[in-house]
């Protein structure tokens, strides 16, 4: 049985939670992701930055009613990485 290596960027609880959430959405605000993941703003901000640096998500900062708004959406590279991660997980889960 061949074990595929798990992507270290995704094999972290909060980053995986963010990507799993964004996979089913067109885009989501920072506040929405924070609410659904129960993460602190500081930690979430750091992890979102790491996903952005890996080009797994696209982050857009803009203003909505004079308040700053951060919008996140998954990129094709992120979708690809997520699919590979799930396949790798499945190879671990299958009985030998």
């Amino acid at each position: 049985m061949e074990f595929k290596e798990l992507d270290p960027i995704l094999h972290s609880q909060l980053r995986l939670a963010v990507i799993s959430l964004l996979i089913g959405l067109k885009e989501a605000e920072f506040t929405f992701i924070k609410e659904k993941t129960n993460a602190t703003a500081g930690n979430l901000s750091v992890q979102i930055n790491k996903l952005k640096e890996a080009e797994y998500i696209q982050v857009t900062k803009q203003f909505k009613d004079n308040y700053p708004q951060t919008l996140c959406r998954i990129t094709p590279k992120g979708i690809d990485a997520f699919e590979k991660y799930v396949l790798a997980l499945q190879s671990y889960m299958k009985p030998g």
Partner: protein
Amino acid sequence: MQEAFNEKSSLQLIESMINKARNNFSESGTLYLLWGFVVLICSLFQFTAIQVFQYDKSHYIWFLTWLVVIYQLVFLSRKRKNETARTYTADIIKFVWLCFGVSMFLFIFILIKQQAYQSINPAILVMYGMPTFLSGIILKFRPLVIGGILCWALSAGSVLVPYNFQILFISAAVLVGWIIPGFLLRKKYLNQQ
């Protein structure tokens, strides 16, 4: 929450997050109910005015729908402002209804221009079926699918009755296609809150 974790908990986390995104059901049924009741009132008013009072200017009641269009634009812009996440399904449904609105307008305009008045109500019923059925399929909400099919059945049935009674088929269509599914959507939405 940032430390590494095992494969089983990874899969559980993925599943729970996908469900959280999926359960973000934002269709409250408000516009189905609003349009359903407005069209129901207009159609019943027109039928009563013609059949009971022989009042031949009753079709002006349909200008009420323009007020609803204005309200809808305000409602949608407010809803968009409060949204914190957007789904692909909501976007697709938006364009399905936009196609319906444009096609409806053109269909009625063409039929009036060609003085094909007898065909207006059956054509409207065909049009009602399309976005209702598609929304039901996209939202995986069976009452809308059934409502759409019933609109098409009513369309076929409407050509078998005298012209003045066709308008009652419009009333029936909005009842089964929009009002009943609208109430059920509202119930589902409120249960989720």
